[in-house]
């Protein structure tokens, strides 16, 4: 039986890091370590000598890890970006999910796959959560701007709330635009005129 794979996760957010660890633990017996700092990242990774490094592709710190792919790096064993070119589909789904992995050259693909599968599933979830959060935020902001536009119309034209909303909707429909966009334009224009 070979030693458990040693994995370094580069993640600033502690909660996210814990979730990734949980997913990996469920996938197998791994020696997992989290690095959350930005400074001395390359040095810290090199000192740990991991078999595999996982990092969010949205992190600007990813470029720091690229140094480890150079032969002259402090890490004696050369590191390659996952995945072996033979498994393009896995690489692509990793990138789509938003995770990149660096592995020590020569590590057998069957040892990496379960780790990557687990990480990909976890990152897909992060991705969905982020998209949902953004959609909620956007909806909230739109509601706010529509409320302000309604208020402006009610005051300027002496109409009720329902009527103001109907007017916004009618204008949006006739111009082929979203109600929020019409409301935004009205609020901006009112700001300029006041």
């Amino acid at each position, binding site marked *: 039986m070979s030693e458990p794979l040693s994995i370094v996760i580069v993640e600033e957010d502690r909660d996210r890091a814990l979730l990734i660890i949980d997913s990996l633990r469920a996938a197998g017996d791994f020696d997992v370590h989290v690095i959350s700092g*930005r*400074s*001395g990242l*390359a040095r810290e990774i090199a000192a740990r000598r991991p078999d595999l490094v996982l990092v969010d*592709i*949205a*992190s*600007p*710190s*990813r*470029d*720091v*890890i*690229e*140094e480890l*792919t*150079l*032969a*002259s790096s402090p890490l004696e064993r050369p590191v*390659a*970006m996952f995945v072996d*070119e033979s498994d*393009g589909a896995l*690489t*692509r789904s990793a*990138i*789509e999910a938003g995770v*990149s992995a660096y592995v020590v050259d020569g590590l057998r693909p069957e040892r990496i796959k379960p780790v990557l599968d687990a990480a990909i599933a976890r990152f897909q979830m992060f991705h969905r959560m982020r998209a949902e959060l953004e959609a909620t935020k956007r909806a909230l902001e739109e509601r706010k701007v529509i409320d302000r536009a309604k208020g402006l119309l009610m005051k300027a034209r002496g109409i009720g709330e329902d009527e103001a909303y109907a007017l916004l909707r009618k204008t949006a429909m006739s111009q082929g635009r979203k109600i929020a966009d019409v409301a935004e334009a009205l609020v901006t224009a009112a700001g300029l005129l006041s």
Partner: protein
Amino acid sequence: MTVPLALGYIRLVDAAPVVIARELGFAEEEGLALDLRAAPSWSTLRDLLALEQIDAAHMLGPVPVAMALGLGGLTTPLSVLSVLSVNGNVVGVSDALAERLRAVGGADFGDAAGTGAALVAAAERPLRIGVPFPFSMHAELLYYWLNAVGLPAPQGISVRTVPPPLMAEAIAGGEIDAFCVGEPWGSVAVEQGVGELILPGSAIWAFAPEKVLAVRTAWAETEDALAGRLLRAVWRAGRWLGDPAHLTIAAEILARAEYLDLAPDIVDRALTGRLILSPRGESREVPAFVAFHAGAATFPWRSQAAWIGAQLASRAGLERTESMAKASAVFRPDLYRRHLRDTGAELPGASSKVEGSLNRPTPAASESGRLFLPADVFFDRRIFDPDERE
């Protein structure tokens, strides 16, 4: 009928040609709906391109060359349709190192030999220098310059990667003594009062290819017409940027929240070459600090790629002649000529030149007969002949 085209870029002043191609309608004129996607890092941008998530990228010149040499991660063949910008980097130092440089007499901004000598005298230990990416002109120019003045890597200097948005933080926190970075990040460090600019990149090599327009080689082959439309749109944007009268509006567009999200006057410094060097406010005018058009600036000379290939090969311990040949093939003057033939672009007669031999603008053979190549000397007056065997 417009065709969508996804183009990745990094939030930098020299992304101007792709931003302007979209914002001023040059892409639309070519029937392209340019979908600009800001990438968080160079490695991610490279992966998005290699793994077909985007069609084209605003890329560091050495990245596609390094990939062709098998260095650093993915090795999907990429082609450089065009250079996007020439020069544009700046070397800066921490306040502490700036102090020591003054104590040893300092040197003029723009004097690479003098500044190098002052660094040798001022360095108390191997200098730690930040660059944005291991495969970048920033790194290449630094290695070339400091090696020539007697600070070779790794004995004299330790070059490390620092993401540009974190450069000011790294220098303020004492993690690095100096940096070589693209704008606006040098000016941002000055603005935050944590660093001083000591040398423009153009003082090391007067005509250094900086960012390039990179696509997958397979895509260039199957999407030949689309590649032509993209190239023309971006070339016209570069020509527009070549007119100094347009730079104020260019700075305003780039400064918007969706692009650099900065004060327009900081962006303006790099575009006009009027740099502010230190928190004390000294300023200096650098001609051709960054260039997008004049002197066939965007022509992808095979000799530029060969120079990059030769530098990378020497550090990575690869065979020089073979590496230079592989590198040269990445830059595509053939596609540039074919797609820009009827646009009025200056098309040089040659695809390769001796780099570093011109110390003043010099007429060169071209289809129009009106081409002047700008000065392209290296600070140490060495020349690079891509055909010379060592």
